[in-house]
């Protein structure tokens, strides 16, 4: 399964890059910049997917009947991946924005909400890093993660309102739907969504595995270290 995801995503991403950079034609309106279309929306989609998975995992953890460490580990794994993809979303969006609108950043609803989403989940990860007791950590971060995620629609609602009030310069009509997508572009776009999603899956599986091992390390790490110290002490000392 893991192998399939790994190979699938690697092949898909390579193809995407090749097609996106060399094979597909430039857009009539946007020119070569349209090539970023094969990267930015997919990365954004994965970020939202990852955070959605985290929120769901938090719910499953907090629900008494389904409570299990699995959900907690899934939550943190997905959140970490989500943070990486979210930061990437903002960065690629910014790279797109600079030549398109002349600015690195615009305070429209989507950008602002995404930036806040990133901040919220960086906070989530910080909270986890700082809480030592695994049970407390799982419960607290589940609540924090859920509350953070639930805040997103409120943030979005308020920012949309905010934006309709001050119309920025007409140049800044940030709409990713502007290029007319057809033919090879459509296929490449589809491929890119699939490939990045496969990559998410692969990363999730591996990151989850790591978190299982981390839990074991927390439990057994002390004993293992002690055993090692004992083993070191033996040669010099009085008999076994």
């Amino acid at each position, binding site marked *: 399964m893991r192998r399939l995801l790994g190979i699938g995503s690697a092949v898909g991403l390579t193809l995407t890059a090749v097609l996106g950079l060399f094979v597909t034609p430039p857009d009539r309106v946007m020119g070569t910049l349209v090539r970023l279309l094969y990267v930015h929306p997919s990365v954004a989609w994965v970020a939202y997917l990852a955070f959605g998975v985290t929120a769901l995992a938090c719910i499953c953890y907090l629900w008494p009947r389904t409570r299990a460490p699995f959900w907690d580990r899934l939550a943190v794994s997905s959140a970490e991946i989500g943070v990486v993809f979210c*930061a990437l979303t903002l960065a*690629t969006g910014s790279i797109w924005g600079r030549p398109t609108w002349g600015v690195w950043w615009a305070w429209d609803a989507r950008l602002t909400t995404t930036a806040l989403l990133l901040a919220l989940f960086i906070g989530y990860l910080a909270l986890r890093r700082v809480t030592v007791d695994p049970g407390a950590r799982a419960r607290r971060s589940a609540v924090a993660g859920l509350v953070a995620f639930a805040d997103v629609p409120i943030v979005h609602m308020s920012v949309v309102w905010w934006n309709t009030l001050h119309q920025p310069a007409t140049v800044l009509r940030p709409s990713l739907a502007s290029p007319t997508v057809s033919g090879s572009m459509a296929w490449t776009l589809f491929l890119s969504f699939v490939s990045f999603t496969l990559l998410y899956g692969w990363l999730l599986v591996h990151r989850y*595995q790591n978190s299982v091992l981390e839990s074991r390390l927390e439990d057994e790490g002390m004993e293992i270290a002690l*055993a090692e110290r004992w083993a070191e002490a033996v040669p010099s000392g009085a008999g076994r």
Partner: protein
Amino acid sequence: MSYVAAGYALTFVTLGSYALWVLRRRRSLDRLLRTDGRPGPDR
């Protein structure tokens, strides 16, 4: 054009680095957890 190149480079380098980091962490965790083959005197 350079913007496009920058975008692709940033994306793939970042994701590649993250993937490598996850794998490296896995290897070090494996190493840390496998070193329990030498029990002390009273184990």
